[in-house]
């Protein structure tokens, strides 16, 4: 048993210092017991093993042996047996439990014995490349003579034909299947004719918008397979989520066998829930999560532990990287010990970071969710989550990145001031007991289904009565006839337009195009980053500081129509944060229910969002050192929402003024958003909230109460405060309907959250940040919010 770590471990020679996750966990617990609100220990688990099945070809058995595999884990054998029975399979086991072999064995056996082929789909190119490298090694070890290759946007044109004609295992991603393979399926005819297995890994990432798109791409894939007379078996893999079996069946629209018991051994895992210390009790202000994450990361790295820090945003990745580099990388002559990793870097840069991480040259890596998936970055000891990732499942997935060496590992969840975070660290039992969230898809979402019926009609004509998955495509087809895209003749819908529909449909976002960030320093023109359309308005306005590998660039010019932002290197000591407003208008109401004194409704709304300016925030002190204006086109969105309203009589009875009523609704919206996000496993950005006044004025977009325009009402009779929660996707993505069904539960939960909060007047954990002036009010924001929530809870 190790003693508490010495205070300055770095003074000891590396090889004598034998720190591990358990030692660090104990040291933190003794030193910071007031900040640790919960500690869990997951005991080490012994492995359960099985013999390599006898029917496996000898060449594969010897390939496994050459790679040190003499036995299988029990779940690997289960997967083998299920595939041999001809079933679709979903394997749900933790990171590093040998999931790969679950699909590699049946695929290799079928390829060796019957020359049949397999298609692998991974959500990212990095994972695909890892996979091919591994396949090539097995292939070499067993001299199997199989050809495995990636097929993605980086595959050169002359190599593509070879892949199509000769690839036994083609490793690609859903986007490529959607834009390049299915619309050209005749070129892949030989491949499809002998396609036996389709492997889809990381299916927990295929939820929400992306998942709904992918479910439709699979409908198209099965349609093309049927044309070539094959019905491939699907082998799916997922990280732990609440409903892997149901989710797999929803994606495939078919019966799937679930394998959920891992036979792999695992090391002891320590988990700490960490709440930053209160720095101002009256205001409910706590130290930032960032300061705590960097502190823990410093201790861990000094103790010689390989550490991964997950941050919630790209900006936060850059900020934390800078702070850690300031400590560990101050000598420019030495290779860097700290690296950042996130989407938006160019692929070559990411590969390089992965390589140096695997080689053990890097001691600390700071990442967005990009590293949540199985990208191989070698063994890690400590994982820090700077802020709650938004779901229990993702938190465990991140903690799962540590402990590959079956040593004790440590995961720390450091709460930010976000209410969801605060809720979790104050209710450690919730974190411990909560089942992981459910992944939901809405494959029949109108806009998404229309996109894919269109793509499918391009690939093969639709015949009368043909179903598209479980969907009747006829209304969509008729609509496409109206748009002159299809022509109907003798009960068949044939493509006639001169267009390539898959090119216009992005699986990952609503956007038509990403923005590129062009560095013009010293007259160069170098692309340094890419930014999603949806994030552009909030991060690329003129004047914004855009960070790439902790280096600040200032946006000088934004070409909105050309999708380009021109930046130059700069050396300012601040970063920028956008200020945004929204305006909502109800278009139609689908459902209405009375709730207490008021009502809740579900329907369609029109949202306009405007970024009006930005704040400059100084590093380290985080003081606000100035504002700048932003002039960008408004973003419009037509979507589904639920909203709550109180009648005038109730408003007059409960509140002394309109401003007071608005403050009350704003506070309540904060708490309702927390509970609603938990209820439907929504990414915070997929579900948005807003409070309107019933007239046409602008509302504060998120958490900036202090900026709420005081003169809220222009037409005195129209005052009708309305609290909206809306799907942040054109046409809606199916969050509102379940929220409407669970409205009562959500209101009750929000009321309990606010009432039981420890703060005095209101805090970021319940009703959002409050001003010092709110403290001395006769009625605090917290009390106001409770009044609103209670009004909806009272029996009518």
């Amino acid at each position: 048993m190790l003693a508490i770590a010495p205070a300055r471990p770095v003074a000891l020679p590396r090889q004598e210092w034998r720190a591990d996750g358990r030692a660090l966990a104990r040291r933190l617990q003794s030193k910071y017991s007031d900040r640790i609100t919960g500690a869990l220990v997951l005991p080490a688990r012994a492995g359960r093993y099985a013999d390599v099945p006898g029917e496996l070809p000898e060449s594969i058995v010897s390939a496994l042996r050459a790679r040190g595999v003499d036995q299988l884990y029990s779940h690997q054998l289960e997967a083998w047996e299920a595939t041999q029975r001809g079933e679709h399979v979903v394997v749900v086991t933790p990171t590093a439990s040998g999931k790969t072999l679950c699909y590699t064995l049946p695929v290799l056996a079928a390829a060796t014995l019957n020359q049949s082929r397999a298609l692998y789909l991974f959500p990212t190119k990095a994972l695909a490349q890892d996979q091919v490298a591994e396949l090539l090694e097995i292939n070499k070890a067993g001299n199997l003579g199989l050809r495995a290759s990636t097929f993605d946007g980086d595959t050169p044109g002359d190599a593509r034909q070879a892949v199509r004609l000769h690839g036994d295992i083609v490793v690609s991603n859903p986007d490529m299947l959607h834009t390049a393979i299915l619309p050209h399926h005749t070129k892949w005819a030989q491949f499809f004719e002998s396609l036996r297995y389709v492997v889809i890994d990381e299916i927990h990432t295929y939820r929400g918008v992306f998942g709904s798109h992918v479910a439709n791409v699979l409908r198209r894939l099965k349609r093309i397979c049927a044309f070539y007379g094959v019905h491939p078996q699907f082998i799916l893999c997922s990280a732990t989520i609440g409903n892997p079996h149901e989710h797999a069946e929803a994606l495939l629209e078919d019966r799937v066998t679930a394998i959920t018991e891992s036979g792999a051994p695992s090391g002891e895992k320590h988990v700490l829930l960490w709440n930053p210390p209160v720095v101002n009790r009256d205001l409910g202000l706590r130290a930032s999560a960032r300061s705590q994450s960097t502190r823990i990361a410093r201790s861990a790295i000094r103790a010689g532990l390989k550490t991964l820090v997950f941050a919630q945003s790209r900006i936060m990745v850059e900020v934390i990287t800078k702070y850690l580099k300031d400590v560990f990388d101050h000598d420019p002559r030495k290779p860097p010990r700290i690296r950042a990793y996130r989407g938006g870097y160019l692929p070559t840069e990411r590969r390089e970071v992965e390589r140096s991480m695997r080689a053990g040259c890097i001691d600390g890596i700071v990442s967005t969710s990009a590293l949540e998936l199985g990208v191989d970055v070698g063994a890690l000891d400590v994982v820090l989550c700077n802020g709650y990732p938004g779901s229990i499942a993702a938190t465990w997935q991140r903690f799962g990145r540590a402990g590959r060496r079956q040593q004790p590992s440590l995961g720390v969840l450091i709460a930010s001031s976000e209410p969801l975070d605060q809720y979790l660290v104050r209710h450690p039992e919730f974190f411990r007991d909560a089942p992981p969230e459910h992944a939901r898809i809405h494959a029949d979402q109108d806009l998404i289904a229309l996109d894919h019926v269109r793509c499918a009609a391009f690939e093969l004509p639709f015949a009368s009565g043909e179903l598209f998955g479980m969907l009747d495509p006829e209304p969509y087809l008729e609509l496409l006839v109206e748009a002159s895209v299809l022509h109907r003749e003798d009960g068949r819908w044939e493509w006639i337009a001169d267009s390539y529909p898959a090119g216009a449909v992005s699986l990952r976002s609503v956007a038509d195009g990403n923005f590129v960030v062009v560095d013009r320093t010293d007259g160069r023109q170098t692309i340094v980053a890419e930014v999603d359309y949806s994030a552009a308005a909030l991060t690329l306005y003129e004047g914004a500081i855009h960070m790439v590998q902790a280096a600040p660039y200032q946006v000088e010019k934004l070409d909105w129509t050309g999708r380009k932002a021109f930046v130059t290197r700069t050396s300012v000591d601040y970063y920028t944060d956008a200020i945004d407003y929204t305006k909502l208008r109800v278009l139609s109401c689908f459902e209405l229910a009375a709730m207490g004194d008021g009502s809740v409704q579900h329907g369609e709304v029109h949202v306009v969002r405007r970024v009006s300016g930005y704040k400059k925030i100084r590093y380290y002190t985080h003081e606000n050192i100035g504002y700048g204006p932003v002039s960008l086109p408004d973003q419009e969105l037509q979507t589904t929402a639920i909203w709550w309203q109180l009648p005038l009589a109730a408003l007059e009875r409960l509140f002394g003024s309109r401003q007071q009523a608005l403050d009350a609704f704003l506070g309540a919206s904060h708490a309702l958003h927390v509970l609603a996000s938990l209820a439907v496993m929504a990414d915070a950005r997929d579900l948005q909230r807003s409070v309107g006044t019933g007239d046409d004025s602008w509302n504060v977009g998120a958490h900036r109460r202090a900026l709420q325009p005081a003169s809220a009402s222009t037409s005195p009779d129209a005052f009708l405060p309305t609290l909206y929660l809306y799907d942040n996707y054109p046409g809606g993505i199916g969050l509102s309907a379940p929220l409407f069904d669970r409205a009562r539960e959500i209101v009750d939960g929000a009321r309990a959250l606010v009432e039981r909060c420890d703060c005095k007047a209101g805090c970021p954990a319940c009703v959002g940040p409050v001003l010092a002036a709110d403290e001395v009010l006769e009625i605090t924001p917290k009390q106001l919010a409770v009044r609103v929530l209670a009004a909806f809870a009272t029996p009518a």
Partner: protein
Amino acid sequence: MTHLARLRALRRQAGATPSCGPPLPMDATTAIATPGACAPLCRPADAAKGKADGAAELQRRVASLRGLLGRREALRLPPGLDASSSRAPIGDRIPPGIEVAAGVHLIQCSYAPPPMPDAIHIAALRSLPQQRHARRHDPDGDQFVSGSRLLAIDTETTGLAGGTGTRAFMIGVADLDGDRLRVRQLLTTTMGGEAAMLRMFAAWLRPDHVLVSYNGRSYDRPLLSTRLRLARLQDPLAGMPHLDLLHVTRRAYRRVWQNCRLATAERELLGVVRDDDLPGSEAPAAWLGYLRGGSSHALHRVAAHNDQDLRSLMGLVAHFATFTGSPVHGK
């Protein structure tokens, strides 16, 4: 809200560039719904799942989906292709040629042949790096080929988008038939005529044919192979020798002419000047217009255009074959 306004609004939300009209005007009639004013409707999601029972239900669904249309740029009406505006009287709807199968018309013409040498040295024409691949497939590549083995092909298609959604509505071939240049064109007048057209075309091909085309190696041939595959027919084109004159022309005149389009080559080398030619880019609209009940006038012009392309192809073979090395290749 008008249909077009809604189209524009939804397109913009999907990230389309805001170049297509004024911003959506706020609709004053849809005020904030008050509890009393809102009648509960059924959820769209539920409606989507229910199988449309009857035409009325279908129409209701189509109407409710119509608002989605313009959210995608590709779904906007192409100019001049409005289905309702192009109904033509029956007398204006006579396609060229004679109907040889349901939905398939055959147009045949014969002309005086170009001055073709008795034997053509294909390999000499192909003495280009880009053509090495082709020579491998051509057992007679180093030998002399008689003019009667040449088959010029040229298709007219519904567009240039590529992939499985583009089709050929006309396939034209030209060959030397005795002492005449014979041009045969197949035209589909319905979607359903495609399979018959492909079968007839395939039947014209002989194993000893040498295909002659202009950019056919990367355009017409793969497109026809795709259509044959979709119609579940054998693809005889795959293994056939193929002389793509675009490459020959490029090699010889890339630095001489502004471009190496067929129109340029035939004007410069053969002195062909087209009169009232239908630009190739208008061919898709000509066919679609007819398919939707419009006049066949433009289809006749498409056939004439295609016919001239084929004659120029044979003319160019004759032209290049009479050259031996310099001065063309030495340029």
